C-alpha cells in the first residue's frame, strides 16, 4: 500500500519541486584491506564519503569500522605490524602515495578520539598547538582570534573564556571532548574523523555534541564511528554497516533504518544479533 522508502526531509518538503542532488565525494575508498601480520581485519571496502555530510560507520565490536577510520588519516601507520592495501583518495590524491607527507595529511584530516585526550597544557595552548606547529597564525593577536573562534564553534567559549590558562584536563568529560573537537577544527581541516566520540559521555553531553556535529556539517565533512546505532540514526545522512571486516551495506541513513536491503543489516539494527 504505502511505500515507506521515500525520502522526506524538512528541506525537501519545502522545496517539493526540486529533487535532492548528492554532493561530491571528498574521500573515495576502493578495495581497501587491512592486515595485522597475516590476519585480515578489513576486506575489500569501497565507500564514498560525501562533502558536507555526516557519514556514520556502524557495526558490532571488532567489525573493522575503527580500523577503516584510522586508515583515512593513516593513523594505522603507527602500528608496527599493520599493512594497508587498496586505494584511498582524498580530493583525487592517493593518500598512501609516496609523495604524500603524513604530517600534512593529518592537518587536513583531523581526528577526535573515544576517550577525551586534551593535552596536559592550558586550554589556550591546547587549541593553539595545532596552528603553532603548522604555522597557521602569525602573531599573538591572530592566535587569540583563532582560539576564540575555535572554542566558539565548539560551543565552549562562554564556559571557558575567563579561564583560558586553566589546564585542559580540569574540565568535565563533555567539556573535554568539546575541547578536543575545538582543537581539531582549529587547524581548519577538510575532514573530521570521530571515533566513538560520545561513548564516554552522559546523555546530555552526548546531545550537545550531536548538536555540535549538526552545526559543523556546513563547513566540514564528518565521518563518525559509533556503536550506538540510534546515534548514527540521529546524526548522520549516510550510514555504512560493517560486519566481520566487510562493508555489508551503505546508503542514506533513512533508507538503512527504515528499509535496509541486506538481511544482516536488518538483523543488526533490529537487535537480532550483534
Amino acid at each position, binding site marked *: 500500500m504505502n511505500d515507506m522508502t521515500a525520502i522526506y526531509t524538512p528541506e525537501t518538503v519545502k522545496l517539493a519541486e526540486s529533487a535532492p542532488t548528492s554532493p561530491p565525494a571528498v574521500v573515495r575508498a576502493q578495495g581497501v584491506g587491512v592486515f595485522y601480520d597475516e590476519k585480515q581485519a578489513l576486506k575489500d571496502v569501497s565507500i564514498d564519503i560525501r562533502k558536507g555530510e555526516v557519514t556514520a560507520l556502524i557495526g558490532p565490536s571488532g567489525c573493522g569500522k575503527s580500523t577503516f577510520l584510522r586508515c583515512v*588519516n593513516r*593513523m594505522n601507520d*603507527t602500528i*608496527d605490524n599493520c599493512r594497508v592495501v587498496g586505494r584511498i583518495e582524498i580530493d583525487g590524491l592517493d593518500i598512501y602515495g609516496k609523495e604524500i607527507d603524513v*604530517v*600534512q*595529511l*593529518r*592537518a587536513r584530516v*583531523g*581526528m577526535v*578520539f573515544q*576517550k577525551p*585526550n*586534551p*593535552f*596536559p597544557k592550558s586550554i589556550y595552548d591546547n587549541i593553539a*598547538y*595545532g596552528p603553532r*606547529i*603548522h604555522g597557521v597564525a602569525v602573531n599573538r593577536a591572530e592566535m587569540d582570534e583563532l582560539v576564540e573562534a575555535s572554542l566558539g564553534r565548539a560551543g565552549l567559549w562562554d564556559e571557558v573564556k575567563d579561564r583560558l590558562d586553566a*589546564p585542559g*584536563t580540569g574540565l568535565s568529560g563533555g567539556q573535554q571532548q568539546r575541547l*578536543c573537537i575545538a*582543537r*581539531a577544527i582549529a*587547524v581548519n581541516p577538510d575532514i573530521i574523523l570521530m571515533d566513538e566520540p560520545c561513548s564516554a559521555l552522559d546523555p546530555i553531553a552526548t546531545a550537545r555534541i550531536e548538536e555540535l556535529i549538526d552545526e559543523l556539517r556546513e563547513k566540514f565533512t564528518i565521518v563518525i564511528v559509533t556503536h550506538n546505532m540510534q546515534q548514527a540514526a540521529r546524526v548522520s545522512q549516510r550510514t555504512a554497516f560493517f560486519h566481520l571486516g566487510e562493508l555489508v551495506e551503505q546508503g542514506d541513513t533513512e533508507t538503512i533504518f527504515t528499509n535496509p536491503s541486506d538481511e544482516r543489516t536488518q538483523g543488526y539494527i533490529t537487535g537480532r544479533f550483534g
Partner: protein
Amino acid sequence: MTDAPPDSQAPARNGQAARIRARYRAEKRFRAYGLIAIVVALTTLVLLIGSIVFRGHSAFVQTHIALDIRFDRAVIDPKGSRDPDSLRGANYTGLARAALRDRFPVGSNRRDKRALYKLISNDAGHTLREMVLADPSLIGTTRRVWFKSSADVDSFTKGQIPRNVPESERKINDKQIAWLDALTADGALEIRFNTTFFTTADSREPEQAGIWGAAVGSFFTLVVCLALSFPLGVMAAIYLEEFAPRNRFTDLIEININNLAAVPSIIFGLLGLAVLLNFFNLPRSVPLVGGIVLALMTLPTIIIASRAALAAVPPSIREGALGMGASPLQVVTHHVLPLAMPGILTGTIIGMAQALGETAPLLMIGMVAFIVDVPQTFADPATVLPVQIFLWADAPERAFVEKTSAAIMVLLAFLVAMNLLAVILRKKFERRW
C-alpha cells in the same frame, strides 16, 4: 526446606565460624609481621645513624688556644724593608713558640719544651705568616691570636683522652694537663665551630684535615658524570622507547642494558684502568676520568628509569598529538618528554646519588691518593668523599676516628639532600593527565 531440622545447619555454621576466626587471626598475624619488620628496620637505622652521630658530632667543633704574640720586628723584618719575600721567609713558628714560653716558662728541659710546643697545631707559623702578609702594619705590635690546638689536645678537651688513667697510658702528660687547665681558667682555651673541617683538604695532621678537597673532587666528578650520562642516557632511552623497531636486535640491546645495571661497579673501574688510563693515557686520579667511569656505571640506571618514565606516558597523548599532525619528533619533544621529565629527573638524581657513594671503581683508577690540595680544575688530582672516608678510617691517629664519622655524616647529608631534591622536583613537575 521447611522440614530440615535446625541442628543440621549448626555444624556447618560452626565450621564457618571457625574459618572466619582463623581468617581474622591470620590477618592480625600478617599485620603484626609487617609491623615487626618496620620496627626492626627503624631500630637498626636509628642504631646505625645514632652510632655514627655519636662518634662524629664532636668533629664539628675544635679546640682553639689564644696566645699573645709579639710581632717582633727583629724576627720578621730585620732589614726594615717590608720586602714580601723576606716577610714570607721569617720564622713565624719561633714567634709562636716564644709566646708559649712566655706564658709557661719551662726552662731548658727539652722534653718539657717539646711538650709545650705540642699544645698548638704546627701550622701556627703559617697562620701568623698569613696575618702579616695580609697586614704588614702588625709588625711591632702585640696581638692576641687564636690558634688551633694540636690533635691530642683537641681529643683531650673533648674527653676522648681520659684524665684518670696513668700518665704512661695517655698521650697528654700531667704537665700539659696543668697548662691546659691554666689556659682554660684564663679563658684562653675555647671550643669553637670547626671551620677547618669544611674548608681544607686532607692533611697528615688531624686538626688540619678537612673534607673540602674531597667535596670539591666529588663535585667535579659528579659534574662530569652528569654531563656525560644524562644526555646520552635520555637520548638512548627516547630512541629505544619511541623510535626503534621492535625486533630481535633491540630486544638484545634491552637485555644487555638491564644486565649492565647489575654489573659490580668495580668492573667499570677495571675498564677505566685498562682503556682510559692504559690505552688513552689519561692522567690518573682526576675527576675527568672518575666522571667518565661513573658515567658508564650510571648510564644503564638512567636509561632504564627514563624508559620507564617514557612508557608511563599514556598512548592517548601520543595519538592526540599525532592526530593533530605533529611529526614523531614533535610528539616526543612537545608532549612525551615534558610529561616523562619528573620520572627521568628522579631516576637521574637517584643515579647521581648512587654515583656519589661509589668507591670501588674510583679506587681502580687511582683516586685513592693522598691529596692535600683542593682541586681547581677537572684535570687536577682529586679524591672523592667515600674514598676520603676510607682513607681516614685507616689512619692511625685517634683524632681521625671522629673525623671519619663526621665525614660519613656529611656524605649522608648530601645523599639525603639529593633524594629530597628528587622528590621536590618530581612534585613540582608532576602534571595530571
